[in-house]
């Protein structure tokens, strides 16, 4: 999620409504994860964006697929 998304999320968290807090928890922290992202940078400048989808996979699953 972008930094802007997080600033907004932090704002919603100001609420005293437990149900809304759980809604935020459900949508932002739970739910199915389809892709992971990593941002690498230097001196405050984002330089490299990695998107990990099919790349991250457990080895035994890969070996099974390869028939080993």
């Amino acid at each position: 999620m972008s930094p802007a998304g997080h600033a907004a999320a932090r704002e919603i968290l100001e609420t005293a409504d437990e149900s809304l807090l759980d809604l935020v928890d459900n949508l932002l922290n739970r739910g199915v994860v389809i892709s992971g992202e990593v941002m690498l940078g230097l001196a405050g400048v984002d330089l490299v964006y990695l998107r990990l989808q099919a790349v991250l996979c457990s080895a035994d699953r890969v070996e099974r697929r390869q028939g080993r």
Partner: protein
Amino acid sequence: MSARRPPLEVRELDSLRAELERQAALASTPRWNASPEDVQRSVARLVLTLVEFVRQLLERQALRRLEGGTLSSEETEAVGVALMRLEETVDDLAARFGLERHELNLDLGPLGRLL
């Protein structure tokens, strides 16, 4: 459906909010950035965070295999020793650069779910 139960006390709400903020921060795109002021320490932090991240991925998967019974006892011992050594190495190197463990914190978060 939130009726028929007392609302949360203020300090309960505060701790819930704090926990959700912590998790929301982890759920964001992990960002690793080396600052120019102390380049050596910064780069060390970046590198060690990456190593620690990979160590966590490996540990997570090793535990899954251990639990699922797909590791032989020799493999369990070998992988266990390797992970133990890796953890010690990360701790040693971090100490040498004056870095605390929590500075290398990069919880797997959503990335761990992809395994």
